């Protein structure tokens, strides 16, 4: 956001001609920008060349040291091992003293120190052959560098922290490192909560900024990846899916709030991830075979109650209900079936879990209703995107049913044909409607 000085200066004559600003104001603006020190292009080019030179020289030194590493004594290796963190800290001190307001210096020095800490600890571990777990290393790294987010107001470090914390939770919570889960990654929650005030500060500053956009995507992706890590081994898969549906429902509600509902879809990660997640869960549970397996295993919920995931789900439900009650823009969506997915899914599990065919039928019906809703909405408000979303949901369901052996061929064929015809007909109808509207506007 923000017009560059060059564009503004070019528009000044136009603004004066149209009476937006006076001649005196235009003159004052020209004088103001000419008095500001602007780094000439040649000087900036020199800086870039200098930086490249420094980078290449530094890389060269690192390679020479790496080649002769085995010949160095332990003491020399230890001293060299501290260089990354000392360099990072030196840059950070310089930034704090001289370049405090320069965002490039703040972000760069914080990021260099973030990686410098990891490099030093890794090198010390190598020199002394210190064994340890990867998730332990990641946690130490995060705890030592997370304060940089606030000291330098660094969104880059915040993003790197979120990514690293997600890696940590994957290793610990899903047992990717040891093969079995070690323990619940509760510290992950603490790390994410620690980042949230930074998010809030940036949001208050400029809620539609690129920083917030990236923070949204990173936080949402991280939470989605980590959610399942809080389930214990006794929790049956259907309850894990139910918990995910609650999370996606909450994200969907957040995407419908006034802050985001007017944004384009790609700038609304809450809506996109929430809707996509719920639809994927419904499509997965549209298979009769899955419900058969669930009904054979029995509806054991006691394991679920004992897992931290249950409490996170309750928190997500409460947050969702609060959003729903306090946000009129969500309530205005009420005919939208996606508002009710979690509730309906829970009802199906509890009431029809023992009857797999009925449960699968209910889920399929819900998907079809959702698809029809979006097709109808797209046609009404003249939006190809929404129309085709509805058609895509229907087409995906059709493809899934194609592979469903429990449905006879003839019904699969009929459903496919119907979906294909509907695709063409709906798009054609909307195109005709648009052409008619355009010709009407032209006549006027």
């Amino acid at each position: 956001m923000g017009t560059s000085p060059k564009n503004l200066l070019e528009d000044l004559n136009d603004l004066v001609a149209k009476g937006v600003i006076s001649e005196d104001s235009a003159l004052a603006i020209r004088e103001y920008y000419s008095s500001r020190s602007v780094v000439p292009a040649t000087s900036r080019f020199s800086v870039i060349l200098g930086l490249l030179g420094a980078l290449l020289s530094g890389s060269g030194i690192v390679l020479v040291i790496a080649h002769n590493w085995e010949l160095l004594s332990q003491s020399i290796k230890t001293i060299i091992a501290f260089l990354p963190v000392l360099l990072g800290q030196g840059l950070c001190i310089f930034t704090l003293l001289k370049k405090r307001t320069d965002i490039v210096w703040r972000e760069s020095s914080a990021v260099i120190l973030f990686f410098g800490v990891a490099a030093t600890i890794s090198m010390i571990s190598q020199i002394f052959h210190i064994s340890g777990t990867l998730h332990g290393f990641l946690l130490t790294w995060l705890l030592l560098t997370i304060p940089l987010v606030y000291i330098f107001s660094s969104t880059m470090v915040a993003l790197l922290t979120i990514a690293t914390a997600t890696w940590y939770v994957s290793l610990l919570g899903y047992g990717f490192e040891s093969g079995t889960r070690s323990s619940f990654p509760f510290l992950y929650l603490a790390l994410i909560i620690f980042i949230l005030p930074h998010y809030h500060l940036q949001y208050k500053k400029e809620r539609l900024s690129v920083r917030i956009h990236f923070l949204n995507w990173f936080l949402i992706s991280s939470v989605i990846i980590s959610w399942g890590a809080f389930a214990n081994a006794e929790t049956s898969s259907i309850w894990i899916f139910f918990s995910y549906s609650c999370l996606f429902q909450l994200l969907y509600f957040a995407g419908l709030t006034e802050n985001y509902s007017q944004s384009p879809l790609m700038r609304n990660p809450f809506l996109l991830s929430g809707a996509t997640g719920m639809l994927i869960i419904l499509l997965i549970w549209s298979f009769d075979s899955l419900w058969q397996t669930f009904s054979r295993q029995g509806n054991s919920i006691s394991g679920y109650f004992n897992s931290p995931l249950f409490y996170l789900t309750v928190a997500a439900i409460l947050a969702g209900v609060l959003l729903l009650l306090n946000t009129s823009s969500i309530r205005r969506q009420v005919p939208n079936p996606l508002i009710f997915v979690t509730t309906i899914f829970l009802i199906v599990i509890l009431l029809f879990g023992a009857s797999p065919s009925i449960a699968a039928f209910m889920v399929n019906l819900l998907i079809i209703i959702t698809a029809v809703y979006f097709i109808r909405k797209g046609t009404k408000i003249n939006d190809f995107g929404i129309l085709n979303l509805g058609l895509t949901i229907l087409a995906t369901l059709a493809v899934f049913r194609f592979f469903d052996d429990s449905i006879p061929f003839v019904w699969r064929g009929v459903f496919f044909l119907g979906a294909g015809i509907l695709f063409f007909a709906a798009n054609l109808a909307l195109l005709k409607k648009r052409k008619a509207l355009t010709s009407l506007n032209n006549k006027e």
Partner: protein
Amino acid sequence: MKYLIIIFFAVAAIQLYIPVSMVLEKQAVIRNGKDFKFIAEPVDPTHPFKGKYLTIRYLSEHITGDSALQVAGYEVYVSVTDSSGFAKVSSVTTTEPSVAEHYFKARVSYHERSNNEIRLHVLFPFDEYFIDEYDAARAEEIYNKSVRDSSGITYAIVTVGKGDAVLRELYTNDRPLKNLLTD
């Protein structure tokens, strides 16, 4: 602004404290501990190498223990003594030994019962030998060959102190692995 600099210096001090304390702890063990030779045993030939380090398994990781120790993941204290130039496990306890001079912390990996005897498999904390990535493949080959060769002996020199241990070097037939790589 002043407070920010003070906070940064505090954070920087902690960032330096962690690696410095790692170095000082290991240096203290090297200075005050005693060198022991731990005989290495063959490991699964398909996965002896993780990343840029060699995973070393030791013969003395297989210990006869009592039922109180048979919990996987349990932290134990392993005391060692010198037996004909090689390390021998003298005891495995759940509490820090008061009498033993040389011991370190380890973790129980699994246990098995055989003839009313419980055999514990304990993971020693010095099982990763870091090596240059360009030498890794050759090191793996030399190491695997040497541990399978019953005519020779492969062992690690480990300095053991009170509660900690530092892996110093890996030897094959009394020659450091690093020297064999340059041959």
